[in-house]
């Protein structure tokens, strides 16, 4: 069956199908009313499920009492933004914001920079050990943090990097770099090799070719890697909660947890903080998500 499909398809594509006027009234992917209704119904249910936990968090953040999550009906009558003003004025919110920005920004910068050269090298050059190196990159994806976190902790404390931004940036980079390198390799593969050859003919070194010709062309790919790094570093919990010890060095991921104990489980404040954290990140995410997906699957769809 599959072979006939493939054969006929090649036969079809030989004719100029794209330009020919379509005769069918119902176009591809359009269905009858019943099927369309069913699709919509399923999608509406799925959307509700996807949206509800987030929407619920926003709703709870408006309730003034810390136990409002148990009787949400009351929130309708007592809705207030007090939680937000309290969080912004009386907690370490801005300290956490600063730490998060430093850590996430640093990780993104370092991670993408060194992943880019690697991605280029593995995309364009075949050197002895190439396959082993690619395999190692995949392997590091598999490293459970639990293997590393104990020895990392001891190494970091020997180096005096516990509770420093630099330490966390370096450690986050280890999880981000391998995947970014894979991503960027996929992107570099889509840039024609002739460009490199032209650059080499004009007398550029391989590194010169990379910096002057390929990097400018790879901006979208670099952006995808940067988004990935940003989002991963932002959501990182394990390293941050192990290596950051003082309250004003907490990233959001740790700070939000500390709310439970330090502020007597004031869930209303926690919900408000969560919303304050989530809004800018989600907004950013929506700006980039389309590119992110294209980038993440670029390698996959080509194969």
């Amino acid at each position, binding site marked *: 069956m599959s072979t006939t499909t493939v054969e006929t398809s090649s036969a079809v594509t030989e004719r100029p199908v794209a330009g020919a006027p379509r005769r069918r009234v119902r176009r591809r*992917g359009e269905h009858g009313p019943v099927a369309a209704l069913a699709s919509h119904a399923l999608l509406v249910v799925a959307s509700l499920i996807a949206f509800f*936990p*987030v929407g619920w968090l926003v709703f709870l953040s408006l309730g003034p009492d810390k136990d409002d999550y148990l009787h949400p009906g009351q929130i309708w009558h007592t809705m207030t933004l007090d939680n937000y003003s309290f969080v912004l004025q009386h907690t370490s919110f801005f300290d956490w914001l600063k730490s998060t920005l430093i850590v996430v920004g640093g990780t993104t910068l370092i991670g993408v920079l060194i992943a880019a050269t690697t991605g280029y*090298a593995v995309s364009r*050059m075949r050197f002895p050990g190439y396959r082993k190196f690619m395999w190692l990159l995949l392997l590091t994806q598999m490293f*459970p943090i639990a293997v590393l976190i104990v020895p990392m902790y001891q190494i970091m404390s020997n180096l005096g990097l516990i509770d420093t931004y630099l330490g966390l940036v370096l450690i986050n980079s280890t999880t981000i770099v391998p995947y970014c*390198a894979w991503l960027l390799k996929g992107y570099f593969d889509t840039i024609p090799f002739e460009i490199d050859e032209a650059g080499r003919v004009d007398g550029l070194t*391989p*590194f010169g070719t*990379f910096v002057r010709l390929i990097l400018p062309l790879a901006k979208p790919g670099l952006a995808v890697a940067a988004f990935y790094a940003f989002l991963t570093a932002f959501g990182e919990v394990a390293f941050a909660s192990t290596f950051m010890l003082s309250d004003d060095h907490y990233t959001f991921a740790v700070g939000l947890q500390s709310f439970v104990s330090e502020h007597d489980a004031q869930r209303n404040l926690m919900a408000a903080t969560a919303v304050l954290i989530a809004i800018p990140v989600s907004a950013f995410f929506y700006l980039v998500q389309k590119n992110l997906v294209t980038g993440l699957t670029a390698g996959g769809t080509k194969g």
Partner: protein
Amino acid sequence: MTVAIDRATGKRRGEPGPRPGLSRRIRYGYQKHWYAYAMIAPVAVVLGVLVFYPLVYGFYLTLTDANSLNSARTIGVNHIDATYKFIGLDNYKDVLFGQLSYDRFWSHFIWTVVWTVVCVTLHYTIGLGLALLLNQKFRGQTLYRVILVLPWAVPTFVTVFGWRFMLADSGIINAALHTLHLPQPQWLEDTFWQRFAAIMVNTWCGVPFMMLSLLGGLQAIDASLYEAAEMDGASAWQRFRYVTLPGLRSVSSTVVLLGIIWTFNQFAIIFLLFGNTAPDAQILVTWAYQLGFGQQPRDFAQSATYGILLLAILIVFTSFYRRWLNRNEQQLAI
């Protein structure tokens, strides 16, 4: 000098000649490839120092009885040297076959495998279903996609707290079940329901990635294939079976492998959902973390042992997976 490669075959040109001697090979290789090595050097250094050195060190720890009481530490101005000693493979023996090894290791192992299989299956099937629905042409497509991506867009550590509010004893879920006169499980206390809740939250968080990746894959399938199949009189199921699934194969094998690795190592969701409570719902990763950081004294050696075992499991699994893919003439396209 670096070599240009033939794109179609990925092979070096002018290969292979008779093998020259080792020192000449090294010198030649250095001249020819030093650009490549220079370019991967930063990553190699970072991974070497921060991943492989800790790995070796971690492996060494598994051969000792290190914990937070006998490790080197500094209290105030006093530096205390490490006093832990080498005990060979005792940790492995203890974890895998020792007394209570079922409770401490194997039960977590089984649960981790179940967790991974169930979660990835749900991720994939739900993700594929939604991707197929979204791949049709109809109004509101973009809006649906934007909403459906939400669980991925909001950071996990934020949404898991939302789930905790919902799963609390008298939270909204149990309130809803109460109105429907259904039993109200103790989501965060009862072992079975803890596991159920963990899978539910992880599925909720993981579907968007699968959905979007598979949607990307679906959109990359040549539309003329469908037209040809339709002209041949293929039914909707046959089109799905013989055009869609093969077209998705390389995306699928990649995202499934990533999904398995990520789920197996999923730390944040279980850690944030249960913290240090719920010993029975901990998968191996969070359990190892708990041994190393969530108790006093911290048992570094045992925690590292779990880690090495975990890594071994994943490496064996991935090797088999790759071999299986190769046998089916597929490539892993990451």
